[in-house]
């Protein structure tokens, strides 16, 4: 990895190692906590909403709505819709921008000088011959 490159502030191996160890440890601990500090296999398949007869909600009797959770779900629904519309707008915005940018690039059929280089530097810019 000692390429002839400009100075780059990378991450030190020790930082990476410490972070990785902490990451794995926290993941294991949190899952262990989620399993009630018990054996892992016991609770692995506890929530199976798609399993008929045995899934979550299959034997409720009463109290099937909880106002705070209702509100939370309504909130996420609203967030879904608002963010969805916004994301769609972003797609169209970038789609249109890309078309404008593409219009400025050299088109394959008008390649007169052969000094095209692909943006990734892979050199496959000449693939159109």
């Amino acid at each position: 990895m000692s390429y002839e490159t400009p100075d780059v502030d990378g991450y030190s191996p020790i930082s990476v190692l410490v972070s990785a160890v902490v990451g794995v440890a926290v993941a294991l601990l949190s899952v262990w906590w989620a399993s009630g500090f018990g054996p892992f296999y016991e609770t692995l398949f506890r929530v199976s909403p798609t399993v008929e007869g045995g899934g979550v909600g299959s034997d409720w009797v009463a109290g099937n709505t909880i106002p705070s959770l209702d509100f939370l779900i309504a909130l996420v629904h609203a967030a879904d819709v608002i963010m969805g519309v916004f994301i769609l707008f972003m797609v169209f915005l970038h789609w249109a921008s890309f078309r404008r940018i593409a219009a400025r690039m050299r088109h394959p059929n008008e390649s007169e000088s052969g000094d095209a280089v692909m943006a990734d530097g892979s050199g496959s810019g000449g693939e159109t011959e």
Partner: protein
Amino acid sequence: MTNLDHGKFTRVTTLFHSLLALDVFLLFFTGYAIMFNSELWWMVTLMGGATGVTALHRAAGLGLIALIVFWMVLMVISPTGRSNFREILPRKADVDAFLQDVQFMLGRTDERHPHARQFAGYEADEVPLLSYVGKGVVFIFAIELLLLTISGLLIWSKTGLMQYFATRTAAMAFVIFHGLLGVIMVMGVMFHIFEHGMHPAFYPVETKAFIPRSMIPESHDEDDDHEGTGIEALELAPSWHSVSTIFGSLVVVGIVSVLMGSIVREGYPVPRELVVSGDVTNLLLTIGINIGMFVLFVGIVLSMYGNVMRVRWEKEMQQRQREGETVADGGEPQTDD
């Protein structure tokens, strides 16, 4: 020739990005196989039925926790992480960039704002570490992943959830909440795939996330001090127009479909259905959601392609070092022979 991509990611970041992407894709495939199980019945079957899907989802969830904690710790304990964090804080220029993008779309301005630029045919200091979209992606995905992880762990945990809400209904509600929350992320990921796959200069995939900065030679030749971006020197791939049109349409259909699906298939309050989603009544929705999953699949393929590019690039760099050859712009000297 200007340098083509200023290469913004370090090696650790590129590897983290790839691992996170694979893990999140697996979470999407398993999670939405559960949530939209009528539409994605084949996916449930492929992954070993409800048992297999939930097991895979949990395994991927474990991986996700490890990955995000790793990243949070790294951002705190390393100087690079801390300085990068300062770089991604939103600024007023990001709002300006968004507004200018709208004007660019409408043809009222000729250039995109520096904070919107992906194509790096500029001086290094003109292009920030992340565009305003990049910043948005980082922040929104970070918040989403955190909320999804917490709600996912609460669903997983028998005692954890029960101590707050002592009914199975509550557990059901949390499953719904978790799924609906993920919809925002899956829509964002589809946009992310489009944005970094269909940029005409980087088509079929922007490589800055795969080829680390340390491997990209930057040139500041005297002969490239021309005005503008240098984009006009690049050649558009012949398939770009048709592929970007088709893929853009698929992305839009996919986003609309999971959005509709999340509204139609809510499954809460509980008595309506035992399962999260209903039966196959809406053919269009079924097709649309499958198209959305196809978009995600394309994302996986592009991610793999990016990694293949990195390996190829690495080999080329090593070979070039052996030959003692330097190509200032990082392009293959293909036109010389």
